[in-house]
């Protein structure tokens, strides 16, 4: 008698249980750190939704209207997120997962395998949405003194709501894999993700939320709400979910929309199951065949590297790293996404209308310059954690090639450093110089922040390279896993601490200087003041150089001591 489909989920459950039993100290520290951050986010979301709902309650009918729109918009956002997440997760759970070769050799009916994998896909795709919705809906419910039934309804609404888009995403994957080889389908999906993220950014810019802050644009508020309401149609599950929850907030029941949610979820699942029985094995078989991926030869890279005044070893390492990076769509598509976000960040500085506050404009601009320095530092730290820190680990099982070659490990680590430094430095300088230009900050600050960001790039990239060598994860599946390892978290903590110290070391003397210079009668600086200001600047430079040297030295040492 063959077991029913939940039996196929047992390995995942047993593995998690064994992982929890065998967790060591670093795992527990990581769990506490992430748990703590998670609780903070949970509290912030709860407080935010509670505060907003309380504010809206004061506006009676308008408040109700806005809350209704808000709920539908919340679900509409999740609808697209879940559909995309479903496409990506199902590609892995249904086609690329290693254990499929073991399971498909066993006498398991495709339908049983489908249900087990679909449950896994829904859970993988929607856990984040559920975790986000929990504090938000709790906040809304408590603010509106909702009855207990609201929370039960929320549970019964979110479950089918998650199933529908994930089923659509899984169906899309089934179609894609039958058309393209799975490994190319993954590349296509990554690009789709980029387009998806880009369109969200464009949508937000299209709505221009900053308009609401301008008194003179008040007559446009009706138009703004019309924009908000336009994508919401009665045909979408997000609308059904929003309506069901809104009705239960006041103690009512909207069985029509709740019924629409459940019947659509059931229909999607049954249809997908039937489609899987028909096309799944053909798609899986195709995904096994597609070992050869299409790739670009990147010959111009060879020519460019030849022109660089570097030795043959460093040149070879440089070409190898760049080709591996550029041929992996998952890597550079994330970088493109990050660049898109940076563009939006800069654009926001451009549209910031600080001159509306005449007396404060100068001070606020200079304050923003330092805020930007901190944020640019944070962007650098994130990029370093995601792209530079995994540099050594990315060698993976092929690291033996480096270790058995006549290459000094110092040369190897330095090649990782240069590959990281050039793009990080270019990006951070662009970010700082352009933001300062858009803000129109004092020329003195332009020079200070420009020089500071160069030193910060040096320190952060050096630290990331070195710590990446000290805490390598050669067995990791991808760079994101390396960045999220205890070593990656330790790097982020060290990097953020360093950035904060730098902002303080540069912010205090700069503010003293600007304050003096802003007075009508400029008083000359006393020798002690100049000494203190110089000490701060020199300390900032010394700190940056020390962080860089410490990072690289300990990194080389760690590589030499690798067993």
């Amino acid at each position, binding site marked *: *008698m*063959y*077991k029913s489909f939940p*039996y*196929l989920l*047992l*390995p995942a459950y*047993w*593995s*998690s249980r*064994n*992982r929890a039993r*065998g967790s060591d100290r670093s795992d527990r520290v990581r769990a506490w750190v992430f748990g703590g951050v998670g609780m903070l986010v949970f509290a912030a979301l709860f407080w935010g939704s509670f505060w907003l709902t309380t504010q809206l309650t004061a506006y009676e009918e308008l408040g109700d209207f806005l809350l209704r729109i808000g709920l539908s918009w919340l679900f509409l956002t999740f609808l697209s997120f879940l559909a995309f997440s479903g496409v990506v997760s199902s590609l892995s759970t249904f086609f690329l997962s*290693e*254990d499929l*070769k*073991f*399971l*498909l*050799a*066993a*006498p*398991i*009916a495709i339908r049983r395998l489908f249900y087990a994998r679909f449950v896994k896909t829904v859970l993988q795709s929607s856990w984040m949405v559920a975790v986000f919705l929990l504090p938000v809906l709790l906040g809304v419910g408590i603010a509106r003194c909702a009855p207990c039934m609201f929370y039960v309804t929320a549970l019964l609404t979110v479950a089918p709501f998650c199933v529908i888009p994930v089923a659509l995403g899984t169906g899309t994957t089934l179609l894609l894999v039958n058309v393209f080889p799975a490994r190319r389908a993954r590349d296509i999906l990554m690009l789709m993700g980029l387009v998806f993220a880009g369109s969200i950014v464009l949508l937000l810019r299209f709505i221009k939320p900053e308009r609401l802050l301008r008194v003179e644009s008040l007559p446009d508020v009706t138009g703004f709400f019309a924009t908000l309401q336009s994508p919401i149609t009665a045909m979408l599950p997000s609308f059904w979910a929003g309506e069901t929850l809104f009705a239960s907030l006041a103690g009512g029941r909207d069985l029509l929309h709740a019924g629409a949610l459940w019947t659509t979820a059931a229909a999607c699942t049954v249809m997908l199951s039937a489609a899987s029985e028909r096309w799944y*094995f*053909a798609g899986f*078989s*195709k995904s*096994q*065949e597609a070992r050869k991926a299409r790739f670009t030869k990147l010959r111009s890279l060879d020519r460019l590297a030849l022109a660089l005044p570097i030795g043959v070893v460093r040149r070879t390492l440089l070409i190898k790293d760049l080709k591996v990076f550029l041929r992996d769509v998952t890597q550079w598509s994330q970088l493109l996404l990050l660049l898109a976000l940076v563009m939006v960040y800069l654009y926001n500085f451009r549209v910031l209308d600080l001159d509306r506050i005449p007396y404060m404009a100068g001070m606020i601009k200079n304050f923003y310059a330092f805020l930007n320095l901190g944020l640019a530092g944070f962007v650098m730290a994130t990029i370093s954690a995601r792209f530079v820190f995994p540099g050594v680990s990315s060698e993976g099982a092929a690291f033996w090639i480096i270790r058995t070659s006549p290459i000094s490990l110092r040369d190897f680590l330095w090649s990782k450093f240069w590959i990281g430094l050039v793009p990080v430095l270019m990006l951070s300088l662009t970010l700082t110089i352009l933001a300062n230009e858009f803000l129109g900050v004092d020329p003195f600050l332009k020079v200070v922040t420009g020089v500071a960001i160069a030193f910060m790039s040096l320190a952060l990239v050096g630290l990331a390279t070195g710590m990446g060598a000290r805490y390598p994860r050669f067995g990791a599946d991808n760079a994101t896993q390396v960045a999220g390892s205890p070593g990656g978290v330790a790097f982020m903590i060290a990097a953020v601490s360093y950035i904060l110290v730098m902002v303080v070391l540069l912010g205090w003397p700069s503010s003293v200087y600007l304050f003096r210079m802003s007075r009508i009668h400029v008083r000359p600086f006393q020798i002690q003041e100049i000494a203190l200001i110089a000490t701060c600047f020199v300390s900032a430079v010394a700190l940056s150089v020390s962080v860089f040297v410490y990072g690289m030295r300990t990194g080389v040492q760690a590589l030499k001591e690798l067993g």
Partner: protein
Amino acid sequence: MISIQDLRKQYGQFTAVDGISLEVQPGQIHGFLGPNGAGKTTSIRMIAGLLKPTSGRIVVNGHDLATNPEGAKASLGFIPDRPYIYEKLTAGEFLRFHAGLYGIDGSGVDQRVREMLDLFELGRWEHELVESFSHGMKQRLVMCAAFLHRPQAVLVDEPMVGLDPRGAKLIKSVFKRMSEHGVAILMSTHTLEVAQEMCDHISIILKGRIIARGTVDELRELAGSEHEELTPVFLKLTGGSALQELDEIV
């Protein structure tokens, strides 16, 4: 019994397996030999139900793999060349899960699991995580799983990779014993000594086609070789004469 008729597999324009047919009778160990890229693993994966054939028919113990895949797989044991095992499960958990997949339930499971672990000398590792196993131990654990449900036919892809001499000897005796009990074994291997020692019949595959088949003696005759060893026979049949030019290249 494993029966393959006119099996073909095409990847675009490339034909990996080009109309092979063979039969492995109960109690027979059939060696599947060929150079790298000849189509051995592709054929094995099609018989295991992991790849869809372009055309042809596969019947395992009377069950057609295309029309009754569950029936065919239920009576088949599969030992892949690079086994995947859930790293965070213990050996015992993995085997119990495997037993469940094949519909084996009840109190007999624990005893059968211990039997198999003892047979493959993994008894004291029953409660250890798979991630702590060496490659050879993982290979032996996969063999435990393959024989756990008492299959009537077994597919083996490169069984000796990563095994120490003691492990290899153990596996050879297990396979011999299983075949004596009527299990049909189709084994792909590079190790010609293993094939010579264990196989009743051998098929040599080259560029997706079976170019020779028979017992070792029959193959020797076919190749017109007087050597006792299988290696020169294999090289002669698969065009290994290029090896003779090595001296010139070196």
